[in-house]
């Protein structure tokens, strides 16, 4: 026989799971939407992303600039492609690791897979913008915790 406290707990847990699934759905929809975000037309200088984004999205732009990718000039279009699809990788806010990250990090991905298994997106643990050469942010990344 289930005690009333236990039943109460089960109801609460059920409610929790409903909320959980609902929030998940919102996150998923928003993330999918973000992946297809529309971009302003900037025909002649579309690849100089940083020039506009340091005004339009200054925090993201600054994060990139201070990151390892920023210091060694792995520019936005290398991973995110081009808004009109003219880049050599697909236009995406969240790059597909199989198409993008593997271009340079294939050996590390293989090592990771052999040692720990893989999360589908590398940047779950290795944030590509916040991974800074300065300020020792690299040692603070989730992968180092």
């Amino acid at each position, binding site marked *: 026989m289930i005690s009333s406290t236990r039943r109460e707990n089960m109801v609460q847990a059920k409610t929790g799971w409903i909320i959980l699934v609902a*929030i998940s759905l919102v996150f998923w929809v928003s993330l999918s939407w973000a992946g297809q975000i529309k971009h302003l037309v900037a025909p*002649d200088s579309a690849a100089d992303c940083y020039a506009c984004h340091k005004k339009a999205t200054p925090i993201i732009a600054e994060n990139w600039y201070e990151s*390892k990718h920023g210091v060694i*000039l792995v*520019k936005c279009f290398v991973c995110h492609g081009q808004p009109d699809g003219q880049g050599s990788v697909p236009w995406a806010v969240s790059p597909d690791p199989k198409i993008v990250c593997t271009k340079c990090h294939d*050996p590390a991905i293989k090592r990771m*897979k052999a040692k720990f298994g*893989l999360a589908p*997106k590398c940047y779950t643990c290795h944030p590509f913008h916040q991974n800074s050469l300065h300020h020792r942010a690299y040692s603070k990344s989730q992968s180092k915790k």
Partner: protein
Amino acid sequence: MKLTRREVLKSAAAASAFMALNGTLPDLAGAAPGEPDKWVKAVCRFCGTGCGVMIGVKNGKVVTVKGDPNNHNQGFICLKGAELPSIVNATKSRVTRPYIRKNGQLEPASWDEAMDLVVSKFKAAIKEHGPTSVAYYGSGQALTEESYLANKIWKAGLRCNNVEGNPRLCMASAVGGYYTSFGKDEPIGCYEDIDAATCFFIIGANMSECHPILFKRVAARKQADPNVKIIVVDPRKTNTARIADIHVSFKPGTDLAILNAMAYVIIDEELDNPRFYNKYVNFMTNDKKKVDFKAYQKFLQDYTPEKAEKISGVPADTIRKIAKIFAESSATMSLWTMGLNQRIRGVWANNLTTNLHLLTGHLGKPGATNFSLTGQPNACGGVRDTGSLCHLLPAGRMIKKAKDRAALEKQWGLKPGTIAPKPGLHTIALWNAFSEGKIKAMFVLCTNPAQSLPNVNMYTEGMKRKDNFMVLSEPFMDAETVKYCDVLLPAAFWCEKRGVYGCTERRYSLLMKAIEPIGECRPDVDILLDFAKRMGVDPKVIPFNNVDDIWDEWREVSSATPYNFKGMTRKRQEKESGIRWPCPTEDHPGTCHRYVRGEDPNIPKDYKNKMWFYGTKDGKARLWMRPYAPAAEEPDAKYPMVLTTGRVIDHWHTGTMTMKSPVLRRSFPNAYVEVNIDDAKKHGIKNGDNVLLETRRDKMIFQAKVSDVCRPGLVFVPWFDKNLIINKLTLNAFDKGSKQPEYKICAVRIKKA
């Protein structure tokens, strides 16, 4: 189990993140759309870093590229390397069949028609004016086998030493520097020194944009050990300076005084290493007399930090500081490129940098080396090593030395005296002669001189003459030189052929053929073999059937010299991702540090000393007393500023390749002029304004980028843009030793247009 509201939300967030991150993407191990059928091993087409790449091919087309994990770059590639597929696939802009110029227009022709015309022009010129009336102008981007073959066709087959190439424009001063200091060309150390150095002295090099993967390696070294010091000496505060502990800006052209002043401080502060230089170094005056250490000390009295400050504008204390860091570090690696090389005192600047290593003993141990970076993917392996310049023979031999000529004639099976004893014309002299109609027929291969030569108007006028003939082997129809050639041959591009690239660290890597050449394109090796046959060159001199035959002969030729790489068989090259010479046997791993006992196979294991500079007669390196001397064209009242040129990371050389990638083109669609904030204020120039640049040779309008990158008095223009060819403004004065032109400094005046 009771869940609090906080716990519910926490687990919900975690689950949603998990779902969002896991639910939409397939596992990394699964097949990606467009997954290649095969991966083909090659080397990047761009800079001298020579990164290994794996080319992804699907249905006979290049679909992607990634870094080769087994080459020195450990899988990393830069943004240009990542764009290689879009350049390979830009087939609409390719030359796909031969053309002959008729009535000023290039008209389609068959291979036979084109080659018959080429050969008739070369034969007529030789018959009427002798073998010195024809020439070959090659490239540090051609494959090793292509350069070796052209060199042999001209020097042995046609008995003509007019063999030159664009490496004269980019690293001839480094060749002169290494040759005068050590008696042999090419760097002593290797890229692994970056991982061991505790001080980097980067002078006249914007590694961040010109050698991005090596810059990454330097940055990683700094990241791993924050005590590592980085000194960047450059009149521009480039992206390279972002990781520097000290950026030293100086009046352009005065680095010779700074380098001598650093030597002064090193001795004055007793940071020198007498144990090293007493054993391994000769002190030499500028006129080649051997002197003692005291004479060198006396020479340096003209370069106290205070005197150097007056010349260079660098505070004396800063010079003292960087000299101390250089000397006190446990292993200093200096890195330089065009900032030192493209100068009328380029060889001297190279020597003075090497002097600091000879004085402190920072040489021949991990991390301690003087390392010249090169600009093109195969300037070292293809042109320097094969001796494809007018004064050289393969493997470090010199045309002017009878002994060297005789040794090569024997190896090549030629009659004694076949190789002409007089060196040919160096690049500037060659193009001067072509412009004057003295060179009657020129074969240009894999390079774009109508955009890359300095003071280029002079030479494009010469190319328009009717009494000279130029055949161009070129993959891209919009290359500037196509406008001027008489015959245009469709060259197979990068991954459409097989052969070797040799990068800055003496590493030779095989590029495998990934796809078939498009249209009627042919590899340059095939074109040159066809040319030799039609010219009637003795088949015993050119006995090759394919590119692998050429490699095998070149290996054999090298084996009699300290360059020895006989152990790099094709079979081994197919398996391995690059091997560094010397590599005498198939089981030899290749050499990291030359001139070091235990590492360099040219030195007996029981040799009495740790180092042996076997390139010189007495086995000692040479420390040269080179004075400061000004640039060829210093600023004056009429032209009060300095113009310098260079690269941006997104583009490479004349842009014929990088402008084919939509993103690279958009990243920098046009050349611009970089102006210092103070200069901009003085001239009323705002960011984006049109600015007129005028030198004694030409004038041109550029859009301004106002920033603090250039120091006051200096402007910078990148040279990739064929619509704004900055070389119309640059100077063709050249170094007396290396014959390399001074692209980096000329006088200019600017005003708002």
